[in-house]
């Protein structure tokens, strides 16, 4: 889409664009290019000599069983977080969209976790699930379930999933509410007159009509679970115990920050970039279709 009438100035647009393009070049493209370049390099143990090793960082990375574990953790984590937060988001949206008393109040009360930082959400959940000071954690131990997410990998994964999903439900609900409000009531009325029960109406009319929203949200939730949950994991488990909650992004951080292995960390950055680019392309293909629709 283009405007017909424009201003004739030649220099001004460049001046207006300069700040954004400058920041983009210095802090986006230059580091991204460097990540690609570093991923072909390897430093010796003392960090003195750097040599070009071609794809060796990548082959080593992909052969590393602990990287496979991080991949598996990410898959489990991202799937569980997305399913849980999408499911609850849809449930609350459908209920809060009905004309029941106080729907607006419910919406307000359900929206605000959007504003809570992932790391803060993690700390909130510490106070629920900490084995000694947590409300639920202590109760679980009290009934003899042997709860300690700091020692048990499965329990650790469960807590980070719950904390990460908890924070995302509000976001999904907001989008599902917007999606529900764009469904013409006449369609649902017609189905009701034809005798379709509410449950039937939901699955045969509402849910299919929500599919663009759902699809968009699946992509956003996967991106969120893969990349924005660093704070949740860092504050709750630091990737532990025994790497049980180490996701790809956490692993890249550990390799770069703790192990100071720039080549390996950059190779992981490149892998992550490919993942984001693929997810974004999937999302934009869908947006394109939505525009024509």
């Amino acid at each position, binding site marked *: *889409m283009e405007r*017909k*009438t*424009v*201003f004739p*100035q*030649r220099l001004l*647009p460049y001046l*207006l*664009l300069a*700040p*954004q*393009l400058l920041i*983009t070049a210095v*802090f*986006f*493209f*230059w*580091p991204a290019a*460097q990540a690609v370049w570093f991923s072909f390099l390897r430093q010796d143990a003392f960090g003195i000599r750097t040599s070009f090793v071609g794809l060796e960082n990548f082959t080593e990375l992909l052969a590393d069983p602990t990287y496979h574990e991080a991949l598996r953790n990410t898959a489990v984590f991202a799937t569980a977080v997305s399913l849980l937060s999408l499911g609850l988001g849809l*449930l*609350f949206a459908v209920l*809060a*969209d*009905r*004309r*029941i*008393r106080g729907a607006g109040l419910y919406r*307000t*009360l*359900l929206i*605000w976790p*959007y*504003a*809570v*930082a992932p*790391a*803060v*959400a993690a*700390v*909130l959940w510490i*106070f629920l699930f900490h084995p000694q*000071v947590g409300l639920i954690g202590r109760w679980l131990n009290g009934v003899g379930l042997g709860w300690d997410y700091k020692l048990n990998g499965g329990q650790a994964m469960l807590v980070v999933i719950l904390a990460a999903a908890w924070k995302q439900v509000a976001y999904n609900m*907001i*989008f599902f*509410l917007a999606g529900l*409000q764009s469904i013409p*009531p006449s369609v649902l*009325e017609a189905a*009701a007159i034809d005798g379709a029960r*509410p449950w039937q109406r939901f699955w045969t009319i509402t849910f299919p009509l929500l599919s663009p929203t759902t699809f968009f949200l699946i992509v956003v939730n996967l991106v969120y679970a893969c*990349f924005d949950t660093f*704070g949740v994991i*860092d*504050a709750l488990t630091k990737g532990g115990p025994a790497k049980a909650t180490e996701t790809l992004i956490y692993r890249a951080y550990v390799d770069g*920050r703790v192990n100071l292995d720039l080549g390996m960390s950059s190779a992981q*950055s490149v892998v*992550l*970039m490919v993942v*984001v680019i693929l997810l974004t392309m999937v999302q934009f293909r869908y947006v394109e279709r939505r525009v024509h629709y």
Partner: protein
Amino acid sequence: MSNAASTTEPGQRPDWLAHGVLALGVLLFVLPIWVVLMGATHDAATIGRGEVPLLPGGEGPANFAALFAGGRVGRMLGNSLLMALAVAFGKIAISILSAYAVVFFRFPGRTLAFWAIFLTLMLPVEVRIFPTFKVVSDLGLVNTHAGLIIPLIASATATLLFRQFFLTIPDEYVEAAKMDGAGPLRFFCDIVLPLSRTNIAALFVILFVYGWNQYLWPLLVATGEEVETLVIGMVKMIGSEANTEWNQVMAACVLALLPPVAVVLLMQRWFVKGLTETEK
């Protein structure tokens, strides 16, 4: 917000079920906050013993006073506010200008510039974290507010939102401005900026929350106390668990979540509109 179809016809499940499920949802969202709010009003020993209090205690003022003693938490609060506001206003400023350039002018390289901005959507800071940190460190910006803020203020989403909106401004406005002899800067200040008010408000909420909630980036860049943000500082307070003063952590947690929650709730109308429009 009316969905007329869903109230009266037969087969409708009763409202109490909806109320029940929604109330459970609210409880699910409020309980963690409630625990922290109440915890922040008790002394360390109570929480250390594991007696998670569900009713307020009398230590609230003392806890917050202790938290602010020494000035470190006050500084963190200031740093977080500065970061959130600078990221929000910085992003809005540079993206409204670049969107204006791309929409209201024709110049060589226009499409290229647009795509360069668009591509940054695909490079979230978490993904290119160490190379970006290296650039910031080469520029000598580690542990400065500039290093904390500037790399975060280039935003494709904000530019795309403004571009989308600018395309809907009628051509007649531009023609009229030209006829009256108003230049592009005058047109921007007198017409475009006032028309963009709602979009700016919506973006402000989203970007304030985004800036306030940053974690990985400040963790790397803020190496000293001078630029440390509240979210980072609060998590650091947990440190070695054995001698954590949980009541202080809880008080800090309350401080870390109140400002963005307040912004979202106070500006809820713009926020919902902004969120559903920017991200689509």
